[in-house]
């Protein structure tokens, strides 16, 4: 089945101090004069092609504690700092908690932002802001950064332009993150969902559109057409008006062996699969790497492991309102510390990292002050991200949080800046964004250029 959402949104998001300083860059748009945009404002306007042929967003759904991972505060009072020690990294002067030794050993390969600021403390709303740059309400919801990049690139081959790898559309216990997909572009620009199990088997829900059609039967065109008619009627009955693109994509995948093979991790060596680990997240990361190798423009790899299963029938992600320290120590961080370095190494060894932008991010951070349950709650006022590949300067930090990790001291960076920067590195100019009517007022994270 194709998952379809209802999209409402508006564009808002007050300019941060940094955004205000950069307002000049978008002033022509504000004045209704996009023609005033001059060459040199955008890296993507240089004519040298995109620095990032592909973008891989590793989405740490649920919001990891920044203090217990990439922005520890060992000198903070005990009610803030948490139980973990810190370790040196490959980046001089930068320390992580001792939960992440392998990532610490490759810290010179990424830039660490420690000064993110968001405005929404809830998961679905916060997720939408983080993935689109704008609030959900009052609507309509803006397109996910992936939809923007995919639309800019246009269709090329049988693989989709925007893939979401994991265990389906991200959601909390109440509802989905509305900013998961096409937003104002329409559902035709939703991500193509790739569901991966911990044994590496892949489910492509969109192929349910063509129920009864298997690759082996595709050669029987008469049978195929009759099945497609059934599928068309079913979609029409379900009120899905934009069936054509979804059908084309599903058909393309079925009809093209090389496209199908891109999803098949059994083509990887056993040692490679073991290095990633036989977990949902590990095997999902391997599928994501294969998608990057196949030059899919935008892949969102969702944290997909129900790591502790402490909530019945629900993927709790990094949302550690209870057991924060136990879960990070026992499961979340060991898993991330295994998979992320492996993914980075793999991309680099295959020569893909130079032209692939990797961004590790989430919807917000967690309360610096330990809560009454000896865990941490939501904290959008300060959190982290990691950036690598596509020529971004690495081996340093961008922005600094205060002594308790509560607020940025320097360089407050908004989700809108994240989206603008991703799109820029993916080859979009200010003019391109204006023409698509996306990310208005967005400014760049200069340090990444």
């Amino acid at each position, binding site marked *: 089945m194709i998952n379809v959402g209802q999209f409402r949104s508006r564009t808002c998001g007050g300019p941060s101090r940094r955004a205000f300083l950069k307002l000049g860059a978008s002033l022509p748009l504000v004045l209704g004069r996009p023609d005033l945009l001059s060459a040199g404002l955008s890296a993507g306007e240089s004519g040298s092609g995109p620095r990032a042929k592909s973008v891989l967003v590793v989405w740490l759904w649920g919001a990891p504690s920044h203090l217990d991972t990439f922005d520890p505060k060992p000198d903070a009072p*005990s*009610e803030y700092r948490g*139980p*973990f*020690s810190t370790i040196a990294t490959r980046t001089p002067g930068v320390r992580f908690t*001792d939960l992440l*030794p392998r990532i610490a050993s490759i810290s010179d390969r990424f830039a660490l932002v420690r000064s993110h600021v968001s405005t929404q403390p809830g998961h679905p709303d916060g997720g939408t802001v983080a993935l689109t740059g704008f609030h959900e309400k009052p609507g309509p919801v803006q397109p996910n950064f992936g939809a923007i990049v995919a639309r800019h690139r246009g269709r090329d081959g049988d693989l989709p332009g925007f893939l979401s790898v994991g*265990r389906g559309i991200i959601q909390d*216990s109440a509802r989905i993150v509305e900013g998961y997909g096409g937003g104002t572009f329409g559902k035709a620009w939703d991500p193509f969902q790739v569901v991966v199990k*911990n044994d590496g088997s892949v489910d492509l829900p969109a192929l349910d559109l063509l129920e009864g059609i298997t690759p082996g039967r595709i050669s029987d065109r008469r049978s195929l057409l009759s099945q497609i008619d059934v599928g068309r009627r079913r979609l029409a009955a379900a009120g899905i008006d934009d069936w054509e693109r979804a059908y084309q994509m599903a058909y393309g995948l079925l009809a093209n062996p090389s496209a199908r093979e891109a999803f098949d991790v059994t083509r990887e060596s056993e040692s490679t*699969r*073991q*290095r*990633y*680990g*036989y*977990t*949902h997240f*590990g095997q999902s990361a391997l599928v994501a790497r294969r998608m990057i190798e196949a030059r899919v423009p935008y892949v969102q790899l969702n944290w997909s*492991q*129900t790591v*502790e*299963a*402490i*909530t*019945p*029938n*629900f*993927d*709790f992600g990094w*949302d550690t*309102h*209870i*057991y924060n*320290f*136990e879960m990070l*120590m*026992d499961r979340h961080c*060991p898993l991330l510390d*295994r998979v992320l370095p492996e993914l980075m190494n793999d991309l680099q060894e295959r020569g893909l990292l130079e032209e692939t932008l990797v961004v590790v991010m989430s919807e917000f951070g967690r309360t610096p002050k*330990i*809560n*009454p*349950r*000896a*865990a941490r709650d939501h904290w959008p006022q300060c959190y982290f991200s990691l950036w690598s590949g596509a020529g971004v300067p690495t081996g340093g930090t961008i922005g600094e949080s205060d002594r308790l990790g509560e607020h940025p001291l320097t360089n407050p960076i908004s989700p809108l800046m994240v989206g603008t920067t991703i799109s820029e590195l993916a080859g979009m100019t200010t003019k391109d964004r204006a023409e698509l009517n996306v990310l208005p007022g967005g400014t760049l994270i200069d340090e990444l250029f």
Partner: protein
Amino acid sequence: MPLVLAVLVVLVVLAATTLEAADRQLTDDHRYKRDPVFLDANTLIYVVQARPEQLQLVQRDLKSGKQRPVHKDETRSELEPAVSPDGRFLAFLQSRSAASVGMVIEDLRQKKTAEIPPASGFSGMRSPAFSHDGKRVLYVFAEGGRQKIFSCTTSAGDRKVLVDASGICNWPSVSRDGRMLLYGSTRDGNYEIYRARASDGSGLRRLTRHKAQDVRPRFSPDGRRVVFVSNRDGNREIYVMGVDGSGVTRLTEHPERDDYPTWHPDGKRIVYVAERKGGFDLRIRDVP
């Protein structure tokens, strides 16, 4: 020359056999596992990720290798099992709703259960363990930002605080003679292992002193040694030491993680969870 060669072959075979005896894999399904504990000398109970949303208690016969769910029709997650010294009671955590985890104490003989339900909102207990006489259950619960050690009867009554210190306390373990209590605590900054009187938590003594995490202490059946987990050598490995903290010896050494040790009732071996090649299996090894 042929005789020398034959002797060498025999020695190699003997060495290999000895190594195999020292550390042997018990499971081979590679699914995520944790929290092994012995029900009796031949029966293990542990936690396996049965499906993405469920951690399941399973019981394994070590002789036959057969295993089955402890609670066949249970769909909620259950984890952190503990068994009373006489094998009569099984305590474990059970998920109820979003971030809401209760503790169940099951009387295996009389087939009845008692429970401490989670408090309202996000709430959960942790790390059940039995007193030496099997009459009380120790467990961990956080309130006011401090994670304390409590105890209750096997009918979940008479709940009282045993250890209330700053920071986070976890993993209580009571010596078989009932005199000593082990637990992990962050009272001095990071996770360290402490020993105290089991009766009231007094007489505190710090057993480890390391910048790394020293966690999950468990008394050996004879009460003379402590097995624990530490990342002091870079990744999670299993160590053993005396009850005074002396003679720390590393038991496992592997680039991947070794964790969740539990003593075999004979006190000569431990079972633990080994992450190998991206999968998770139980292993048993001798403790020198």
